[in-house]
């Protein structure tokens, strides 16, 4: 399985990663190698095998709908890169 630089660009966009142009070829090589390793999976026919998502086939636990957390907005915003009046700031989205 070979991944070229264009494909790396596409994947980087999907993954929301800014990758330097100069690093693209090495990512292409490494990702291709990893997908070659992964391709070994095809050696086994898995038709009809149930996919396993949890060792105990556990189901999601439910709980009473009651308030268990309290307001810690100030603590959480104290570690944010940029806030104002209790809001998180990001660059302008609409002009």
């Amino acid at each position, binding site marked *: 399985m070979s991944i070229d630089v264009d494909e790396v660009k596409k994947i980087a966009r999907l993954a929301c990663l800014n990758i*330097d142009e100069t*690093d693209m070829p090495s990512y292409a090589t490494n990702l291709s190698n990893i997908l070659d*390793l992964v391709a070994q999976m095809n050696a086994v026919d898995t038709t009809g095998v149930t996919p*396993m998502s*949890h060792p105990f086939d556990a189901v999601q636990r439910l709980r009473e709908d009651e308030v268990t957390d309290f307001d810690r907005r100030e603590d959480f915003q*104290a570690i*944010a890169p940029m806030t104002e009046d209790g809001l998180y700031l990001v660059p302008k989205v609409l002009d």
Partner: protein
Amino acid sequence: MSMYHTKTVTELSAMLQAGEVSSVELTRYFLDRIKNSDDKLNSFITVCEEQALAQARESDEKLKAGNAPALTGVPVAHKDIFCTDGVKTSCGSKMLDNFISPYDATVITNMRKAGVVMLGKTNMDEFAMGSSNETSYYGAVKNPWNLKAVPGGSSGGSASAVAARLAPASTGTDTGGSIRQPAAFCGITGLKPTYGRVSRFGMIAFASSLDQAGPMGQSASDCALLLNAMAGFDEKDSTSIEKSVPDYSADLDEPLAGLKIGLPKEYFDHKEGGMNADVEATVKTALEQYKSMGAELIEIELPNSNLSVPVYYVVAPAECSANLSRFDGVRYGYRCEDPKDLNDLYTRSRGEGFGAEVQRRIMVGAYALSSGYYDAYYLKAQQLRHLISDDFKKAYEKVDVIMAPVTPETAFNIGEKTDDPISMYLSDIFTIAVNLAGIPAMSIPVGFVEGMPVGMQIMGNYFEEAKLLNVAHQYQQQTDWHKQMPEEFK
């Protein structure tokens, strides 16, 4: 001159309870050891001198009052993957270099309730992605047995610190071998519990269906004490198992006569995968020891185990790409300078904040989960995971535990595998299947090859941690490999 670093947690706990030493004295002693020696190892990211001494003073009061839990006043190091209230929690990443956690992970809360004093936070591969501790933003950790060698990873700082006795014990996490492989490389004892046994709440997520926290210490009996404190149901973790926690120290002294040990033929006489003949011979000597203790060795098959590495490199990256999407430069963590728009803020914060290995895995995951590829990668991997897990179920119908090497070779040199991710991935060839199945497994020291420690893996059926600890403890009553200390740190 007191030599507290030569004592196990079990011994230190007894000394504290008997009033032979105070927690403050013990904590100062280990803080001094860290101060004097860690520049050689780089095993800590953060040392919590003030908090540790405050916790130690509190412990001393509890000890004086009587009826204090067994671990009261024992200093322990925590892997920097666990959120610690008011203390930097970096996960080995530039992304979280400025992150002061506003809450404690459940493991930290449980350990604190048990009386443990936190010495500091240990170095690790970035977001636990690595097998050598070389992907850390804070630099490589050194192996105390040979400062040119890696300590293994991702819990490399925890392993190195315990091996050099800068801490009596530590916590770690294991997604594909991250407790067992560094324990083997550094000559200490480590346990990855059954998936769901220890809470994942507040443990920074890598691959949620595989991640599990566990103890790393000098002996099986120390790991039992630590697991007693760490384990338990937690409603804050949706995959935590509602099952009572036994006393893991209770069965340590059970004799092993009649124990059935399974030896998977795929893990021995390894023609491929770079199995070192001396490492294998060392493991076989340990197996002979078990035989002389009354155990029976039975050859078994784990026919799908050769697919563990490929399956893992779909499942783990897929889950990591989802988990790490939370790092966006908006709410916490690293934010790039002067973002020109929102997309630039996201992509540049992530591009600059994550290291190369983390980015590779995020991209593999994003690719495997992308439209049109899901069935061929993620679904296929989850199907194979079922087969791998069924192999273990079948094996445990015939045997009590399974034994195998932990790693194909002893600790490799720093820089040796950094240019070739695949060869790095293959160093976890014997540990990954355990995580995919969700079963518990240990690594115990069983000898040396050219001065470097060799680990042996003991795998158990679901929730049989007590059995594993018993089997490991009995071996450690007959041998002293676990008591060996690197010359430079004696």
